[in-house]
């Protein structure tokens, strides 16, 4: 009897798997790229270690984000986006809105939350002090959240 239920559970799990995959492709197809964040080719991020000044110099703006429009200077706002519901972090001279990433970091939300509204370059490059930098792929993932 148990084997019968286990078999059914296995079948349901496989069907669920393909359902979610189907749903994913449906969302991709029907959602504007800018909101789906998939297949977006964000501007290349230079992995510099530029320290973000709380009040950035206007003359440096282009140097920090050469490929982005410079109409907004979001660095001035960085420290105000410091909560789980509105979290920006600075990494390598850029700003990322990682609010939507909460719940997805393998190390838990806590490791991101404590750096909301701050320059997280050093913690990011040392995995919160462990010592090793995040992989190139992790940087790729981070690019999806680039706002400046």
């Amino acid at each position: 009897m148990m084997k019968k239920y286990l078999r059914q559970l296995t079948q349901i799990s496989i069907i669920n798997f393909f359902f979610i995959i189907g749903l994913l492709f449906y969302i991709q197809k029907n959602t504007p790229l800018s909101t789906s964040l998939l297949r977006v080719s964000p501007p290349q991020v230079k992995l510099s270690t530029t320290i973000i000044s709380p009040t950035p110099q206007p003359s440096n703006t282009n140097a920090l984000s050469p490929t982005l429009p410079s109409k907004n200077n979001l660095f001035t706002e960085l420290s105000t986006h410091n909560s789980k519901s509105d979290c920006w972090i600075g990494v390598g001279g850029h700003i990322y809105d990682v609010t939507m990433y909460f719940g997805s970091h393998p190390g838990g939300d806590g490791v991101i939350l404590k750096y909301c509204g701050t320059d997280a370059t050093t913690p990011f490059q040392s995995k919160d002090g462990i010592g090793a930098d995040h992989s190139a792929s992790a940087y790729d993932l981070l690019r999806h959240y680039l706002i400046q």
Partner: protein
Amino acid sequence: MKYLSAKQILTIPTFITLSLWLLSKKGIMDVFDDPLRSLSQIFSLIGLIYMMISLILSTRRRFIEDGIGGLDKVYEMHHIVGSLSFVLLINHPLLLAIKALPQAALVSQYLLIGNYLPYNLGVVSLYIMVLAFIFMVFVRLPYHIWLKTHQLLGFAGIIGSVHALLITSDISSYFPLRLWMIVWIFFGSTSFLYIFFYYKWIASVYVYEISKIERLLDVVNISAKPTKRKIPFVPGQFAYVGFKDINLGGEQHPFSFSSSPLEDEVRFSIKMLGDYTVKLPLLRKGTKMFLKGPYGKFGDVYIKGKRPLVWIVGGIGVTPFLSMLRNEQQLIEDRAIILFYCFSNPEEGMFSDEIKQLTENKKTIEVHEWCSTQRGRFSVPKIIEILEKYDKYDVQICGPGPMMESLKQQFEEVGVDSERILFEKFQIL
């Protein structure tokens, strides 16, 4: 004798894994803050442990067989634990994906190949598992192809383990949990590599040469003599058998001995049921036969026990009983045995003559033939009068799966302790 059940084997590892996972958290809010993520983490950890246990169970090691009560039971447990691990592991990324909806980028990170190697390993492992299980629960493949898809699960386990150790997670952040998982991964992966490479290609085999092949309707009797050493089996056991024959390839299948260990030659009586066994009549005298084993504990109660025995045989399930009957040494004169030989039509009762010949001088052995087309379906209430003359007896049943399940239930209903009802299940790997 008490043997370990799947429940007993899984309880302690599950408890320790859950405890270590809880200890890895900063507080209880860390667990309940994001229930879907917590559930997903629990699924991944326990699923991985179960997968490693399933791989360890597949090694065919003697101590595992002794602890669980026979290789057929071990493989049944391997099947249950493996299926449980699959259900848990497939739902690990699914829960994360559901949580991430409708953010397609995050969902795809869990389910599609991307740029992040540790995640990709998890995704690859997931797809291999899904593919292999599709061929277990939806699509029926020829055995030799199915076996290859099934073996892929071992690779999926190793790839999934690397994924678990590389990602930043509770495993990486909490050393006791990491150590616990590494120990299981080590034993599970080693077990898979052992059975996939060492057991198949290097482990010792008993080499025999076919001396006689005879076909009786849909049953093939294969007799063979050892080229060097004899396989040391006891009545009721089976071996994995392979042949050096182009038609049959290198497959190994489990078959019960139908000869006695005291005889010079071994004999296997095999019913042509599948795509492999239908080719057995193509074998020729002199073909090399390779045996691995022996396995099984079905004959233990016959060899070591003292109580009267009730043997219920369904069709080709007669093979281990023939081995026991032929083993003159073990046939204690005062050991009462009641044998019910069941078959659906007289042609199927092809071992009747052999059984009669083996038992004609044994006064304590009663043989009852049961042809279901003449006497109706065999059931315990129909034989209760015969059984009532014994106060306590052990029951050995070997036949088709549904027949064994049904009879076990019927014996329990008439007060026979389930521990005294023994099976031999053919449907193993």
